[in-house]
């Protein structure tokens, strides 16, 4: 019975144009679009530093970590140079931007860095992303320096240098070949995470099919002499198969055709996709059972969860750091955030600890969704249909 239902569930899913589009075609289309959008950034060899300005006001001068970082990123003798930076006052920075002499400028006000740009583009995205990263690092350095110096004393330059060393040594497993391109690969990782989340949509459809209060076909299945657990599990297994197949194809496409770097071995990459898909399928099952509304409305909820998760995880312009600061717990419980972070840790770190934390979190979340959904499902007869 399991295989009979599995076979037909798979057949119907593969013949459903809308599901095939969202599950198989859409992530590929987005991957190609991302590749076109980030083509210049993606090619390390042709990346060239661009003109920016930094407002050297009092706050900038006092922020040693920030100043050091921008000096390093602007050093034309360094391989890591990103910017050709002019250190000017505010009026001059405004004028340079108005005259299109620079892509944007950075200034510090109220102890927070701000970026001013005139237009949106790749360089502007890089400037914003790097500034956010530097800001995060600078905050850590500042905190450590103050702690080292004691609350009563102003940290000396030596203390700042020590603090910067501590911060850089705090992440000893950073791979040597991981460059400033990390915000770009995050875009691709969130895309894989979003593709995993299509599993929730599949799961909503497959769960609805089995339950008499959710669909007419569900009524027909419910009166058959087949266990609900068998029809549901076989259907979900079919959806999972389809999703894993599409994810493997997407990952191979990204890696072999688009040249996206993942860092880890292929099995770890697939394993994370498998765990992410599982959490999405369980989420879809829970939403399908728990939400007392029609399938369309449930799919809208799935799309919202997926898109908001993707936004928090870093899709659409590298907002990850900003959201990590504002709402740090979201990416710790969001499947999209965990999948993205899992891939990022594979790419960025030698140590697999963070990867397995993300993997384990996904499995725990899947288990929680599963338990909540099955508790609802155990009410096998309904008050109304």
């Amino acid at each position, binding site marked *: 019975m399991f295989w*009979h*239902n599995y076979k037909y569930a798979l057949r119907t899913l593969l013949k459903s144009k809308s599901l095939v589009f969202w599950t198989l075609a859409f992530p590929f289309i987005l991957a190609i679009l991302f590749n076109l959008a980030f083509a210049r950034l993606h090619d390390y060899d042709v990346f060239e530093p661009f003109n920016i300005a930094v407002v050297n006001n009092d706050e900038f001068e006092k922020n040693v970590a920030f100043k050091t970082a921008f000096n390093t990123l602007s050093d034309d003798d360094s391989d890591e140079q990103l910017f050709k930076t002019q250190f000017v006052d505010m009026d001059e920075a405004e004028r340079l931007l108005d005259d299109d002499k620079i892509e944007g400028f950075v200034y510090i006000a109220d102890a927070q860095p701000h970026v001013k740009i005139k237009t949106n583009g790749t360089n502007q995205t890089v400037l914003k992303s790097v500034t956010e990263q530097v800001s995060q690092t600078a905050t850590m350095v500042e905190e450590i320096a103050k702690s080292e110096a004691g609350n009563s004393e102003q940290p000396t330059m030596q203390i700042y240098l020590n603090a910067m060393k501590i911060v850089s040594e705090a992440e000893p497993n950073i791979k040597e070949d991981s460059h400033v391109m990390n915000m770009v690969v995050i875009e691709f990782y969130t895309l894989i995470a979003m593709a995993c989340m299509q599993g929730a949509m599949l799961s909503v459809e497959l769960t609805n099919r089995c339950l008499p209060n959710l*669909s007419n076909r569900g009524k*027909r299945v*419910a*009166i058959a002499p087949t266990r609900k657990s068998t*029809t549901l599990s076989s259907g979900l297994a079919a959806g999972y198969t389809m999703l894993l197949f599409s994810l493997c194809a997407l990952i191979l496409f990204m890696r072999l055709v688009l040249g996206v770097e993942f860092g880890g071995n292929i099995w770890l990459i697939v394993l994370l996709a498998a765990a992410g898909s599982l959490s999405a399928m369980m989420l879809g099952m829970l939403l399908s059972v728990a939400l007392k509304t029609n399938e369309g409305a449930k799919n809208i909820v799935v799309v919202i969860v997926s898109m908001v998760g993707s936004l928090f995880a870093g899709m659409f312009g590298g907002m990850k750091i900003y959201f990590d600061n504002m709402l740090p717990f979201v990416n710790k419980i969001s499947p999209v955030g965990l999948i993205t972070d899992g891939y990022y840790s594979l790419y960025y770190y030698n140590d697999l600890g963070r990867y397995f934390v993300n993997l384990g979190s996904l499995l725990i979340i899947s288990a929680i969704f599963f338990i909540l959904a099955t508790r609802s499902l155990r009410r096998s*007869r309904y008050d109304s*249909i």
Partner: protein
Amino acid sequence: MKNVIEVKHLTKSYKQNKAVDDLSLTVKEGEILGLLGPNGSGKTTTMNCILALLKFDDGKISIFGKEMAPDAYDIKAKIGVVFQEVAVFDELTVYGNIDYFCGLYVEDKATRAQYVDDALKLVGLEDNKNQYPKQLSGGLLRRLNIACGIAHKPKLIFLDEPTVAVDPQSRNNILEGIKKLRDDGATIIYTTHYMEEVEILCDRVIILDHGKIIAEGTNDELKALAKIEEKVTVEVADLSPKQLSGFEKIKNVDAVSYEDGVLKVVFGKGKNNLAEMIEYLKSNRINYSRIFAERPTLNDVFLELTGKELRD
């Protein structure tokens, strides 16, 4: 004949509303039982309770001598249901749909293939077996819906308005198929809004209203409950209000109506009502083109008992 279904004191409420109120019924082996009632009378709720799809507040339901429950798989294996709403997969062909639903009951592939062919033949879809549901007309789609519900050769079949919105050819095909199922030994519970189908098909009829059985019996037994004796219909081009009121004075007349040139006169009793009517028309020099008398139908009985037309 033994009872296939026994329902005793079934009660089911939705908050304050009693959808089924202390209902008891039996269905005998091999019969076609018509379950009639206006919308909201409790037909579908009763069916869903019998099928263990709905929780109920009180009562006992047994099928084939065993208590019905969601996990009574041995009972479920002998039941087929054709729901009012078409429930098929657009992504599967006609054959694929029947094979899928049949496969929930029959695991052996060879047996299933034979059953699917039999079902296709029964509903007359042999030539459409490779088509997809969206390529079928409304009537053919209904036939597919039926085939999906009965392909596994159930002993007990629930048919919930299977002929809604189908063309006459498909309806005839469906009705013939249902008769064949009965002839093959199935017990059938049939709900419909079409009274003529009940008269053609059903061995026994139960009329429900407000969750209670208000009448039960064969077609003739139910017709005998009617208070009217005869209905006389006359096609008259024109009638004045005075002439119309004159009909009410004819002996045994219970009700008179005139609409679109058709005069309907209901007689509560009496044996020579048609002759009396003709005599009245002649003596009052009222010209008419056609006149005929009818015995009460099930629809009249239904109207009298529930105060509603079946199709309301």
